[in-house]
């Protein structure tokens, strides 16, 4: 599977993960599956990369 990183949504504080190659350090907006919030990774409450 692609390398992943965990993100904490800045709006609802729920956690989900995304493919590193698709979103990390890019301007692509993530989509929170719990509250529909859209944000780039830098705007997340917390990021867990595991690197």
């Amino acid at each position, binding site marked *: 599977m*692609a*390398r992943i990183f965990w993100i904490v949504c800045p709006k609802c504080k729920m956690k989900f*993960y*995304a*493919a590193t190659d698709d*979103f990390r350090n890019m301007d692509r*907006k993530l989509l929170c*599956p719990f509250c529909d919030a*859209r944000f780039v990774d830098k705007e997340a409450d917390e990021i867990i990369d595991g690197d």
Partner: protein
Amino acid sequence: MPKDLRSFIADLKQKNPGDVVETDRRIDPKFEITALQRHLEKENKSPLLIFNKVNNLRGELSPFKVLTNLFASRDKCAVALDLDAEQWRMETSFEFAKRTGKQIDPVIVDKKEAPVKEVIKVGDEVDLYDLPVLTHHEMDGYPYLVDAVIAADPETGEYNSSHHRMLIRGKDELGLWMSPRHLWNYYMKAKEKGENLPIAHIIGHHPSFYLGSEALVSEDTDEYRVIGGILGEPLRLVPSEVYGEKLMVPADAEIVIEGEILDYRDAEGPFGEFTGYYGPQRWSPVVKVTAITYRKNPYYMNILVGHPDTSILGGIPKEAGIYEEVKKSVPGVQGVHFPISGCCRFHAYISIDKKVDGEGKVAGVAALPYHDELKHVIVVDKDIDPFDEKMVLWALATRVQATEDVEILEKLRGGTLDPSATIHAVGDKMIIDATRPVSRPFAQRINVPQEVMNRIKLEDYFDLGGK
């Protein structure tokens, strides 16, 4: 009457009456149907489920019934291939392989003869929220279509049918995740021509349609012909509403969702995958939905991903293929099974009538290239039923010394959704030779004399009352 989902339900009711259960209690497609399937799994039960009253995505009572667990047990697949339910072991795998070799050209029918055209919604009438699309697991977040997606090769016109998750983004918009296989190649060809690729999501048909979609064939094979072979009759096709003869769709499907893959991407996922884990959120192509057509009194068929419903669907089509590959090198191969414990993709159990030492590992080496997702092959003797996992693990416990019988091959091409992989689409493979040696004496299995087994009957001594 052509084979379709309804003819299969009738067949199953006749051949295995207790295997179809229905409810009129109203239910919501967000997690609730999956919850019931999970409860049943914990009790090792997997009947075909029909929900007659389901909410649509606006919370209103939908005119669509929901049907699921079509592939949740092998005996249903046996019935789908016109076998008896009891013939669910290698008989089902061999029948599938036999039919894969007998491809049948599809036939084109008039719109008036196509049940899937009984109700037609195009343009502004299209609304995916009319459907009772399931949200399966908590981190999915959104409802997902999960059945088969068909497309025509932009260069040759040959058809591909494959299973893909599709996120409901809006009333007429979907997100589509593709592994880099046949559909992906068609999408890239269309992109190179500056065109969107027309596709159709086929919801609800005879299970042979979906089994045929899992057949491993070359990209230049028209999969509508393969599906016809699995059905045992020509697949009936009708021109799609928006794309006409450029995209032919199954006339007897319950629902067809037509659309085109745009040259635009957006966030899609996470989604609970066949592995039993969530695949991550991806930057995936977007699909514009252009038409929805369906039958009157339609069934919305859902294949529950990450559970036996999708595992078995993916496993059966591979078993006989691997059997044939292994047979080229190990003529004594007896059976091949992809167990649910390996998601019917990651593990294969192969039994052989071993004649010489080394054949166990040869069988493993022959099997591994068949599909990139296959990781671990356990080879057993013919006294071990590969469909009996307890016995396979007993052979593993009693016939294997790791330094002699385990081979590890590093960094081969792997599946794209294996959560243990540290490099995308690359993984290690393992062969475990759990066969007894031929060239030296080995312990004998314990047994009771056959004459005594035949003479002494349980019912002569105990009243077990069905326990």
